[in-house]
């Protein structure tokens, strides 16, 4: 289907089903129950899942295929956001031109940074990209925000004000980013029994774009171009002595992944029309590296899983506070209860990074292939239990990177 082989088609359909049905299965707990805290099915978080999914899918095209580890991809995310907000300010709140412009600007920016950074490989490449991203951050944070020339609005962040130009804005259109009149904030709530499900326009628009982005990534992975990118990772010497110039291949991959980051940045602005410099900071670049590795570098679905995993823990663990902990351990005698709360306390709320760090270490040590490898191991285990050993052998022999 759609020019994909059977295996990829089923993977694609899984991703489509996952994103379309996300409002249901991310809200498994009734809204009044004490476990409702673990529900992730609210628009804001679901949007973040798919937007960071796009970011990680794009990053994986560079890192997963060519092995070039960029530590500056957040720069493209930030540039995309600024580009989108400028379109909102000057022309219209319609998200289509904003997103298109984000992708173009991020692509051009990636071409420039990539052209210079790709003169080196390995750690030097990583450092160069990091340096560029930090320069971009500094530019956005202060340099490009002065009374004479205010491109980024510095610390406050770029946002849309009432007296902005907005040439194509009309009275009857929502005063918020919209898709031909459908506000990104529009939300339909469905109550079934004690469950409450949210269907947000913003989420579904982002989800459709992520599905398209995922489809494109699958096509790239399975194209001769994708094979060349894996060849770059595998052996550049052989590549050069086979009459192939690795530079334009890596640059193309860099620009494509920069455009994915720009797309993600544009969507971030579309669901919340604000662009701040902190979006370009190195921690944001590091986050997408973590997402990709955690999910499974070089696999198709891994980055989406990694992005979802990290964003889920970021939002859920940071919400848990001591009062909730006391509630959980209330069944214990008081001394023990306080002790348990004291033990768990550093890992929740603001300490969620600690939890993430431990989870990351566990995954890297026990599942070097990321969450995808975990899934494969479970599948193989189930297959073996069912006595279908021949199937498992077959899958072990088939090509990697699914």
């Amino acid at each position, binding site marked *: 289907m759609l020019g994909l082989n059977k295996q990829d088609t089923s993977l694609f359909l899984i991703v489509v089903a996952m994103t379309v049905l996300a409002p249901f299965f991310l809200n498994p707990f009734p809204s009044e129950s004490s476990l409702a805290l673990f529900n992730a099915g609210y628009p804001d978080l679901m949007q973040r899942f798919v937007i960071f999914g796009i970011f990680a899918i794009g990053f994986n095209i560079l890192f997963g295929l060519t092995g070039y580890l960029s530590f500056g991809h957040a720069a493209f995310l930030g540039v995309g956001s600024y580009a989108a907000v400028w379109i909102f300010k000057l022309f219209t709140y319609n998200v289509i031109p904003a997103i298109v412009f984000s992708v173009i600007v991020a692509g051009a920016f990636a071409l420039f940074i990539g052209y210079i950074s790709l003169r080196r490989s390995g750690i030097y490449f990583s450092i160069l990209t990091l340096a560029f991203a930090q320069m971009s951050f500094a530019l956005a944070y202060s340099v490009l925000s002065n009374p004479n020339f205010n491109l980024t609005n510095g610390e406050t962040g770029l946002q849309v004000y009432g007296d902005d130009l907005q040439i194509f804005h009309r009275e009857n259109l929502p005063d918020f980013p919209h898709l031909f009149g459908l506000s990104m904030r529009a939300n339909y709530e469905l109550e079934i029994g004690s469950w409450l499900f949210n269907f947000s326009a913003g989420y579904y628009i982002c989800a459709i774009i992520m599905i398209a982005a995922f489809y494109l990534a699958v096509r790239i992975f399975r194209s001769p171009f994708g094979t060349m990118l894996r060849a770059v990772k595998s052996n550049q010497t052989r590549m050069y002595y086979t009459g192939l110039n690795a530079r*334009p291949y890596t640059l193309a991959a860099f620009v494509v992944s920069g455009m994915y980051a720009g797309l993600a940045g544009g969507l971030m602005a579309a669901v919340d029309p604000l662009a701040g410099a902190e979006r370009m900071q190195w921690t944001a670049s590091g986050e997408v590296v973590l997402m990709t590795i955690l999910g499974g570098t070089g696999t198709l679905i891994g980055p989406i899983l990694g992005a979802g995993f990290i964003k889920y823990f970021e939002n859920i663990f940071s919400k848990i506070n001591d009062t909730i902990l006391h509630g959980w351990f209330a069944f214990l005698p008081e001394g023990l209860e306080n002790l348990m709360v004291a033990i768990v306390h550093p890992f929740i709320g603001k300490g969620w990074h600690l939890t993430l760090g431990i989870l990351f270490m566990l995954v890297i040590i026990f599942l070097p292939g990321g969450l995808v490898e975990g899934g494969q191991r479970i599948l193989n285990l189930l297959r073996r239990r069912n006595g279908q050993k021949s199937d498992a052998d077959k899958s072990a022999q088939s090509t990697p990177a699914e």
Partner: protein
Amino acid sequence: MGILEVKNVNKRFGGLQALGDVNLSVNERTVHAIIGPNGAGKSTLLNCLIGKLIPDTGSVMFDGQLVLGLKPYEINQMGISRVFQTPEIFGDLTVLENMMIPIFAKRDGSFRLHAFESTLNEGEIIDQAMVLLESLGMADKRTMQSASLSRGDKRRLEIGMCLAQEPRLLLLDEPTAGMARADTNNTIDLLKQIKDERDITITIIEHDMHVVFSLAERITVLAQGSPLVEDTPDNIKGHPKVREAYLGESA
């Protein structure tokens, strides 16, 4: 006028004169061996031919064109392929993919953005790759990751990848180094077959005299960075200067 003409090539590494006034002419459709004791400059010379090193002075002409200063991939696209001492293959890729890449390179040149085509639809390329794998006796290994091949098979694959580009000149850098006897003989047979079946010139650097004398039609002996003699294998065998270079003056 040979297909490969090396004229007055000099290469210095600091105080070491690695190559001194090397002149070499390789005739089309011959197997030309370059031999010499360790440190004679054989590998340096080879690296100068393929663009890995740039000679300090002198010129290298391939088929009447100057290759000096060109990038390795440009030299390769002119029709020179190289087999390395340790097989350089795409270890993470399958055997079939390894074989397809040089065919892509031949068809599409050094870069093409074919990002929206499907590799599975490249029937012609897959067929060509399979024919080559068949001729190497590796067709049944096509789905294997090439890093897990045996040393001998890696070498076969690498030679096959070079042939896939249909080069006019094939350079081999100690193709049987570190190989078991059986693998060495297989490689000799493969190279003989290539020589008989194809319109190709082969230049080989080798330590193993068994390999050299089984294949070469012409031999250049290199010693201390300069060509000592160039002659047919029969004449080289008993040449006093060659013995001296290999075994020292007392021999």
